[in-house]
């Protein structure tokens, strides 16, 4: 790739030549991306382009068939989500990954419960912490002790975001984080992203909505049919250029006049 954000800096994340097959489906095919501290990398592409599968490899949810992952320049082996969490990688999954029968604090702390001195769960402490972090994201969200099943799409998404933010991620993967949110909450998430950036956190932001990503990302990577089309600095390209990458799978400059017509 011609574009890197390097100024001699080590990337926070490098995923090199990743491959993942599901039976006959080559979901991810030779994709290489990197991510720097304090950077937002947008990943764009059609439905089924392989965005989720690629990032789930980094979350430890999928094992890659081939490829190498480096965190801070060191090769790592991610066997399961716990490994990724331990390296400071937090994920907001597209499906939100919430247990509908549990309440918000139980979901927020699932797998990382606050314990009392007796080795039992401290539900009150978890409720208290949850209120604080959820309050910040979504001030209107009060009924956090109800089971998730009774909550709105936006509330569910708030819990998923709160969970990823709470544990001091160094690397944050956001797979369609605002799909169910209203304009006000979406603005809140944008603000959150800006703030996390300032703290030096690297963020991978997935969306198939171009406009969402364009305003927040420093760079965009475009995927099509499991392959990487290319990565560009957002400031160097126009929305139309990126649209061309998404739809045609070609880099700006490679397009022919006919291609241009097809776009409009």
């Amino acid at each position, binding site marked *: 790739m011609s574009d890197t954000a390097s100024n001699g800096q080590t990337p926070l994340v490098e995923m090199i030549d990743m491959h993942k097959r599901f039976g006959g489906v080559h979901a991810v095919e030779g994709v290489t991306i990197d991510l720097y501290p304090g950077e937002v990398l947008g990943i764009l592409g059609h439905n089924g382009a392989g965005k989720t599968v690629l990032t789930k490899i980094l*979350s*430890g*949810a999928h094992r890659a068939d081939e490829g190498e992952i480096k965190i801070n320049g060191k090769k790592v082996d991610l066997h*399961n*989500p*716990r490994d990724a*969490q331990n390296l400071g990688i937090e*994920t907001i*999954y597209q*499906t*939100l*990954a*919430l*247990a*509908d*029968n*549990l*309440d918000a604090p*139980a*979901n927020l702390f*699932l*797998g*990382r*419960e606050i*314990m009392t001195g007796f*080795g*039992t*769960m*401290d*539900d*009150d*402490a978890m*409720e*208290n912490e949850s209120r604080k972090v959820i309050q910040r994201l979504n001030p209107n969200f*009060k*009924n956090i*002790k*109800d*089971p*998730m*099943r*009774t909550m709105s799409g936006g509330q569910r998404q708030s819990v998923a975001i709160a969970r990823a933010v709470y544990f001091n991620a160094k690397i944050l993967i956001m797979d369609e984080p605002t799909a169910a949110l209203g304009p006000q909450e979406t603005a809140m998430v944008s603000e959150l992203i800006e703030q996390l950036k300032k703290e030096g956190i690297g963020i991978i932001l997935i969306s198939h909505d171009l406009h969402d990503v364009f305003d927040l990302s420093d760079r965009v990577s475009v995927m099509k049919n499991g392959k990487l089309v290319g990565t560009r600095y957002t400031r160097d390209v126009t929305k139309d250029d990126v649209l061309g990458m998404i739809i045609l799978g070609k880099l700006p400059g490679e397009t022919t006049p006919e291609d241009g017509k097809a776009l409009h």
Partner: protein
Amino acid sequence: MTNQSGSERAGAVGQKSESFFNAFFRVTELDLRTTAMLTALIAIWVALYFLTDGLFLSPRNLTNLAVQGAVVGIMATGMVLVIVARHIDLSVGSLVGFTGMFVAWLHVDFFPSILPGILPLDSDLGWILAVIMTLLMGVVIGLWHGFWVAYRGVPAFVVTLGGLLGFRAMAWVVSDGRTISPLNDHFELIGGGANGSIGEFWSWIVGIVAVAIIILITARTRKRRRKYGIATKPLVVEIIMIAVYSAVIFGFVMIMNSYMRPRSDIPRGIPVPVLILIATVIIMTFISQRTKFGRYVYAMGGNPEATELAGINVKRTTTGIFVIMGVLASVAGIVTAARLQSAGNLMGFMQELFVIAAAVIGGTALAGGVGTIFGAILGAAVVFSIINGMVLMQTTSAQQQIALGLVLIFAVWFDVAYTKRKR
């Protein structure tokens, strides 16, 4: 109390005016489902009281009822976790047969034949060792089930159906089809026969300790909630609730103490199997509500994929569930053999159905994710009240089973209708 049961608190916080019922549920933190179950149970008891001319509620009958139900109750607490995690265990009846036979064979046949000098039938060490080894056998059986379900992906229905057939046969193999008896006299006390109760004094001690624990937990909860500024119940309500619980507990002790030993006026007190049931309920409630393991079981039932993505070892948790179920089935097998004072081939026969029925009638959803230990005990109480009451009414066992079948359908229908309305 956590909201793990998935049962919502009917009263939402912050409502200006609320109905009496909403206020009742919010203040007591009881959910509608449990309250309905309790009401149904009381209604059944009142009906049976009149239908049997008062016989049903006599101390003697209530004691028998508790002892009969104990074995199924003990296993129902484990079945709740199994079903909550979206599995099923069809083998528990056969496990009672196998482990009951195993514990008897060990201390009656095996130990006395290999170590006649050290572990004869009448030695206490022999039966104690047999009990320990049988509990360990429960662990091994649970690991076996867990291995196939969690690590080999065979549905629990199939694995435990294999167990249903296999363990019944293994019970037969252990004893060559014989009925093993007599058993050690002290071992038989576990079954709660004529002398298998803890007596008046210790029954009161159990009751007093139980009340003390409730007061302690209430106080601690209040203190903790205060610390975080989480709303606590009004003190009056807490005191009334403690008074109600105490009345129930002391009432229970008094009933158990008004059934006398044969040809005497010495109170029997709480039968040992009932004591084991109480201990099981406390431990299992603690596991399901206060430990990480319990939380993960419910999370798996709600969304297995999400549980795995949260970094939880789902396979190990699944295995843990079957190990607990295996141990509880062993406890049930030990109690059954001790109660029958012999180990025969029909121990636990078809009991899996009663255990599953108790859990389901008690509000455990077969779709997973929802169910409480306390509910399952209420379910077991319903099942055995109906059987016991109908026996007193001199019905046939066929009629009893028809009635139970109808109750099961009715209970699940209630659950379906209730869940729909809540959405």
